[in-house]
């Protein structure tokens, strides 16, 4: 029995040696990565934000008097909060694409979380967390979800083609967080609800939904 097993092992290992010879024969071939993952990701982010702005423009339309309100604290706070979430999403997506890199979600997200919390604590506007109308919150979530769809599709494709995710669900969640943040950043140009609490609850909720969707899709699409 022992001899048979040893023979079997030799045979199986010979197949591995043959595989190694075949793989070595392909040296110098394969897709040469002209652009690094980071460069492709940045290009993807730029394209995605453009697509999200288009979706927001076609669905909700820009806020009245946006140009005059752009310097108001409320609009700047929303833009800064969502931009910092985008930054966290980019950092996490880059880490998820590279095997052996630790994902540090708390560290990456803490600037955005601190900024939003400070906004909520120091907001003296008295505006409602539910927004100017009853349906403001759900409308915000709906538009952000729509605006996040092109980024989610594009960035998942970038991850599939150029990344090497070794935790597919976590990678999908990172991409979802980034896509949701881009959708939310685009929505700032349309949003008429200026309460910091509104941003924390409804923008935050929409981003988390897209992150969860990304995780579910990532588990299937990003496995290789």
């Amino acid at each position, binding site marked *: 029995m022992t001899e048979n097993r040893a023979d079997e092992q030799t045979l199986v290992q010979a197949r591995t040696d043959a595989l*190694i*010879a075949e793989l070595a024969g392909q040296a110098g071939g394969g897709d040469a990565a002209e652009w690094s993952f980071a460069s492709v990701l940045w290009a993807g982010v730029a394209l995605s934000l453009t697509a999200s702005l288009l979706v927001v423009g076609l669905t909700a339309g820009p806020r009245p008097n946006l140009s005059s309100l752009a310097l108001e604290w409320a609009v700047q706070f929303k833009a800064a909060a969502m931009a910092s979430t985008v930054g966290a999403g980019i950092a996490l997506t880059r880490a998820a694409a590279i095997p*052996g890199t630790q994902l540090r979600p708390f560290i990456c997200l803490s600037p955005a979380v601190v900024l939003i919390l400070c906004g909520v604590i120091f907001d003296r506007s008295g505006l409602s967390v539910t927004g100017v109308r009853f349906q403001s919150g759900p409308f915000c979530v709906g538009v952000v979800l729509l605006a996040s769809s092109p980024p989610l599709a594009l960035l998942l494709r970038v991850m599939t083609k150029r990344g090497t995710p070794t935790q597919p669900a976590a990678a999908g969640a990172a991409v979802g967080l980034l896509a949701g943040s881009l959708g939310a950043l685009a929505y700032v140009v349309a949003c008429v609800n200026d309460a910091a609490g509104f941003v924390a609850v409804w923008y935050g909720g929409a981003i988390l939904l897209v992150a969860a969707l990304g995780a579910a899709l990532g588990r299937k699409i990003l496995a290789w």
Partner: protein
Amino acid sequence: MDSREIRWSQALRLERQGERESYESFLKDFADSVRRIVKMRFRLLNLSPADAEDVVQEVLIAVHSKRRHWTDDRPLLPWLNAVTRYKLIDAVRRLRRDALRRCDLTDYEWANLFAADDPALHRDACDVDRLIDQLPTGQQSVVRALGVDGDTPKEAAVRLGISEGAVRVAFHRSLKRLAAMRRRFVDD
């Protein structure tokens, strides 16, 4: 720095220039390392060593297909470790799913597993009982529940206070043990 980091990352840089020999040497060294890890894991997890080499080959193919995604501004060993770990976990899950599927008989098949048309086999009932007594206590309960009392896996799981999956795996292992004991018994 680990000497493998230096040798292996140099081999991958040379591979990009079409250098075959150093790349082949890297793949052989790497395969040896992966083989040791996989065999050790399989021993710990009670998986068949016959499947280990398939996993080694999967890891080699994975590293080969994604080699251009490694950039030489990053250390190579953590990259390789993460890819190996990912493929190993994937393989272990797949092998366990396959093992469970092999246990996944219909209720009719479970009920008739110990039924015999050959009357001569009835005299072996005492032998089987003696063999079952030699199993670990947990496995004895499962075999008696399914094979003697005629419970379905679901009923046995409820009765014994364990999951249905655990019942199936324990029964599969018990059958292998009983078969091995029976062979020794007959040979003697």
